[in-house]
């Protein structure tokens, strides 16, 4: 059987599973895999919420109940919550970071309060900050109310997971899939392993390279720059790392520290629109999300933060949504639909249409003048059996999608002429 024939077979198989569009997004290296015979699905709860001043705890409790309750998940357990606190700086004035491109502090406090009330043994808030910058200081800088947070769960712990942190060794977490896209396993801060329940507390927003940031993309920030950063050590982690993940993860121009698992295929496409969604998928396979919570109460459009050209804040009350689910693929699928997009959209079509200024960006070193795109993470995750990206298969509870949707695309600043 030729490679082309094999690809046809693969596509036909996907069509049979209702994954045809997904096949378009999948690259050549994935064509020989056996598709999962079934993908898990789990209920997703949707609620309207217009303000961070509403009774968030009550709202979340209802939502948790709608997906089966959190009592058993939480009681006596160590819970790790990956926050979505990307970047910092000036933000989108006059709004605090947590209203627009970070997950909100009041919402986080409400989540912690409910976990605490449900008998959590330990709650640890995780984010990968600049080395030397405590998570507590970062959130204070972003306008969170530390007292509120500590009142919500008095013994709250924080860990900067950008390096070893308080751990003695890195945790090696292997992708469950037999066919990892980019990395077979990751070396992460111990907190991602030392927990019974892993929660992704994410923002609902666009993303410059992946199209959307939701519960899965949030976990990209779990990778420690000591190993996956541009100035990571060649052999061993650099605990004093300073730079971001562009060279290693976005473009694969260099490998992570040799102490960590290396790429499975060094000949694979180096374009970030290809790599980042796959790395996210590998990560979710290695560190599954047990509970996904998406903050869409207020947000931004056009990018994941103010450093993205043409990004802008949405006003208070927009999108006015909260989404909660036990399966991150299902939860993100519902969230994408709520954002007004087709969760099965192919790469290059909104929201997976992306565009970077060729004069300013460095992506074209790998991508040249080819059309830009971000692969659909939902379909990539579905293809390796992490969860269903098929809306029809997902039990949406609470407010129906049709009554809660918010059109993100119409709020974007116009695409540049070259991208239209």
């Amino acid at each position: 059987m030729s490679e082309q024939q094999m690809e046809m077979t693969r596509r036909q198989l996907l069509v049979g599973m209702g994954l045809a569009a997904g096949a378009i997004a999948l690259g050549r290296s994935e064509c020989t895999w056996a598709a999962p015979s079934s993908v898990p699905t789990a209920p997703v709860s949707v609620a309207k919420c217009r303000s961070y001043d509403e009774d968030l705890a009550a709202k979340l409790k209802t939502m948790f109940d709608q997906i089966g309750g959190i009592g058993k998940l939480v009681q006596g357990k160590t819970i790790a919550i990956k926050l979505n606190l990307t970047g910092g700086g000036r933000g989108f004035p006059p709004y605090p970071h947590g209203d627009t491109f970070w997950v909100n502090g009041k919402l986080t406090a409400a989540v912690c309060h409910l976990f605490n009330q449900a008998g959590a043994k330990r709650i640890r808030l995780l984010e990968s900050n600049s080395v030397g910058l405590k998570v507590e200081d970062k959130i204070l800088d972003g306008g969170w109310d530390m007292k509120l947070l500590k009142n919500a769960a008095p013994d709250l712990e924080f860990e900067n997971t950008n390096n070893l942190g308080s751990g003695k060794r890195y945790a090696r977490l292997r992708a469950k899939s037999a066919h990892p896209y980019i990395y077979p396993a990751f070396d992460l801060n111990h907190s991602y392993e030392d927990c019974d329940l892993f929660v992704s507390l994410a923002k609902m927003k666009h993303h410059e390279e992946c199209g959307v940031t939701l519960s899965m993309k949030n976990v990209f920030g779990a990778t420690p720059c000591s190993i996956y950063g541009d100035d990571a050590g060649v052999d061993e982690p650099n605990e004093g790392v300073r730079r971001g993940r562009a060279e290693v993860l976005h473009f694969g121009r260099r490998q992570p520290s040799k102490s960590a698992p290396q790429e499975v295929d060094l000949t694979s496409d180096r374009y970030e629109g290809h790599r980042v969604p796959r790395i996210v998928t590998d990560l979710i396979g290695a560190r599954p999300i047990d509970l996904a919570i998406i903050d869409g109460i207020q947000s931004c459009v056009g990018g994941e933060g103010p450093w993205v050209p043409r990004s802008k804040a949405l006003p208070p009350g927009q999108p006015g949504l909260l989404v909660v689910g036990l399966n991150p693929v299902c939860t993100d699928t519902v969230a994408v639909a709520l954002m007004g997009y087709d969760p099965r959209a192919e790469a290059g079509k909104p929201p997976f249409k992306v565009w970077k200024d060729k004069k300013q960006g460095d992506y074209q070193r790998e991508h040249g003048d080819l059309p830009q795109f971000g692969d659909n993470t939902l379909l990539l995750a579905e293809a390796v059996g992490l969860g269903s990206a098929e809306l029809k298969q997902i039990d949406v509870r609470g407010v129906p999608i049709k009554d809660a949707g918010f059109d993100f695309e119409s709020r974007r600043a116009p695409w540049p002429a070259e991208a239209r």
Partner: protein
Amino acid sequence: MTWSAGGDSETEQQQQRHVKAYAWEARTRGIAVLGLVHPGGVPSSFVGPAVEAGLDGLVLEGEFPGGERFVSEVRRALQSKNSAAVVVPLIAREKHAPSLDTPILAAADAVAPGLREFARGVEATPSSEPWIDSNIWLARSICSWSGIRPVWLGEHLATNAAPADYLRAIADAAVGGGRWVVALSDELHHGLRQKQPEATAAWRRIAAYLKFQQEHADWYEYAPFAVYGFIQDSSGKDRAISGENLNLACRQRIPLRVIERAQLSAAALEGLRAVHGIDLIQPTEQERKILSAFVENGGLAVAGPSWKQMEIPKNQDFAVLPAGRGRVAVYRDEWPEPGSLAKDLVDLLGRDNLGVRFFRAASVLSHISIDKTGNRMLVQLLNYASYSADSVLVRVVGDFRTARFYTPESAPEEVALEKSDGRLEVNIPRLPVYGVLLLEK
């Protein structure tokens, strides 16, 4: 007031007649008038009329033929007419040196203070802070050796400057210990002449800021509170990059004091945690001795490659060498990239060791100083954004008992000092432009 711009004699005479009339009127109100001289004329053509008009001084702005020689000529011409008028050359920082013979130091290369989202050559990344154009470092650099001589900054604002831009320029110079040469736009001049309400309101605000600086003149003489000593070499050949290092260290909000190389001594380093020795391209034996003693006693010295020949690990800009109870961070390059160096400093010092930290203050720069008794600490805060900085949190190590917040446009207010993990925190609810937090024991 513009006095001479090398124009034809009729135009010059007409202008000087206007200024003369203005100067007489101003003098009756106790206002000193300086004439602004631009290149083009010769001293003999503008000095005599200036003396006749009773000007208090001449400010030379621009590149004059002969440079310092021209300044001396003007000075001599004034003296020959028995005038006590001062001569102030408005020149770039790089030409300023302790040896400069002028009663007022004026920097021509100050920038219009403000915030830029993107600056040339600076990549916008998730962790990027907004780019702040500030002159605090510039004023501090010159003030470090100016003694009692006033330091003026002579930047021009945009023609469409908002009232807050003027306030920011005044405060920006004041925070660094200098004064801004108030230069109103033609539009504002016109508005004031027409008694337009907006222009009058803007002028009142400008006057309030100038008055505030005058009323609290003693504050600006407080010594800098510092954990970092920035040694600068005002006779060095790479002053531009040295200035950028100082600028970016100030932008990282590192409490520092500037130490002129010639003034370097063990006493000058007292109370510091770290010292910046990058400007000491080739430290003398004496300088090496002083820094070594500082390090032996637990300090951190940041030095260039001439400090010691050593292997710097690949992917790193510097290596840390333990010495005695302290450390030396030895850089690979003689002049490390200023942006990286400034960030390194924060990491090397440790954020919790800065003495004073700021949160929710991305658009705010500061200067911290203490009085002679050590009982009063001043935290000056200047917001460079066109929008108000809200809920700025100042975290201080110290046993202060009261906190009061002053602004030029409102009455001082008591603010709450809260203890948090052994440190004191003060929340400033709103900072439209400038304010001073006074902490007292």
